[in-house]
């Protein structure tokens, strides 16, 4: 599951002068980042010549250090940086002939979506030819993506005659 983009949220402080914002954004595209949101914040208690910007971006894994170095070179101060990977987590249990029905393909059907991934898998195989049980934890970018990932698992389970046990949805 390496190579999947990481969602990063940063709060930057820079001089409020022409070209500064562009200068801050350029390193992000240089490291292959995909900017999702740029939020300007003009805080009244700050000096007029300082600009606060919050940026949410997707970053290829392992590029964070490089980005921080590039931003420092540009004179941009990083007030805060948080990594928010896939925020939604659900755990399901699958029962059946998991190995014989190509478990790695089952996992790959989720991982290949780009919006969800299998982040944990626990298995129990009692004996050859007996049905095995597995607990699979999935992470997804959004609630809708999680629904889509579960729909894929339902389809795959049906095709491979596996019993899929879903979590009881949160009562909203």
């Amino acid at each position, binding site marked *: 599951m390496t190579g999947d983009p990481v969602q990063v949220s940063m709060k930057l402080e820079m001089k409020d002068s022409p070209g500064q914002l562009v200068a801050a954004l350029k390193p992000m595209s240089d490291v292959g980042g995909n900017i999702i949101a740029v939020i300007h914040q003009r805080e009244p208690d700050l000096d007029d010549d300082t600009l606060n910007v919050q940026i949410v971006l997707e970053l290829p894994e392992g590029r964070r250090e490089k980005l921080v170095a590039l931003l420092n070179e540009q004179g941009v101060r990083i007030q805060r940086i948080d990594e928010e990977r896939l925020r939604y987590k659900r755990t399901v249990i699958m029962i*059946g002939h998991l190995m014989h029905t190509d478990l790695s393909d089952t996992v790959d059907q989720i991982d290949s979506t780009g919006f969800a991934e299998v982040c944990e898998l626990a298995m129990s195989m009692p004996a050859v030819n007996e049905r095995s*049980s597995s607990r699979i934890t999935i992470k997804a970018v959004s609630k809708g993506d999680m629904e889509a990932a579960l729909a894929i698992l339902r389809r795959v389970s049906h095709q491979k005659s596996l019993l899929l*046990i*879903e*979590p009881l949805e949160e009562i*909203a």
Partner: protein
Amino acid sequence: MNVALIGLGSVGRGVAGMIAKKDLGITITGIADSKSGCMDPDGLDIENLLTRKNKEGYCGDQKVSASDVIRKAEYDALIEVTPTNALTGEPAIGYIKAALLRKKHVVTSNKGPIALAFKELRALAAKKGVSLRYEATVAGAIPIMHTLEHGLAGNEILALYGVLNGTCNYILTRMAAEGLTYEQALMEAREMGYAEADPTYDVQGIDAAIKLVILANTIWGNGIRLNDIDRTGIDLLTPDALRLAEDEGCTIRLIAEAIPRKHILRVSPRIIEKNHPLVVDGTLNALTLETDMAKEITLIGRGAGSTETASAIIGDLLFIKDSYVQRA
């Protein structure tokens, strides 16, 4: 109030016994089992009849049938507690119709007629100006229908989730607690008298689905049927699956679920946190309703048993007595 009782199995005996024992202002004027019947407008001697039933296998005159009692006895309300036929609902549907046509109230614990012919029977009762009540069909002693009708009156029911089959809940509880296989837990349930010789109806979620049909039709009047329920049973579960759930602070329960806004009507084994209010042990039942005003309400109680089911039936009878029939 005078009542006629049709069916003298575990539920019928429980009802008759409680009516005889308690001073409820209810008199039994007609009784029938599958082989015999008897009537007396002044009230039958229940203890005598139950003793005969235990000794000889029938309660009354073998020339008198259930239909005779329903058509001829003098009563205000019919108690219909014959065994459920989930495919045809008969002969119970016929019994209920015959009583309604005579303008008699009907109280039943029989899921068949309510799941299969609810609309028709309700319309007939309304036309005849009498009441058709079926509290005992869903979740045994839990007063779910009274709660929906009175306690939550005016609420919009947004969703419901329930543990509606005690047999499945017992099996899952034992698998989780002792690491038993499904087969071992089922065998134990049979020994305890919680599972039938043919457990299909329970373990494949059919019983829970029928109860979901009854609830959904009662709440939303949406005319759904058994085939509309997406259904998965518990018979393929492994002890390992329960252990894997346990490792995460969860367990597995058979949950019946209806969420109209998402078009969900489903009975399936689900991963659920162990401290969730729906996680009840043994043969208990539980129901969570999600409503617009009251928000979430969970009811927990015994889903089966002779006296427990009698509680639901007697609740319905006394409601009818207070609402329609002059107080004794």
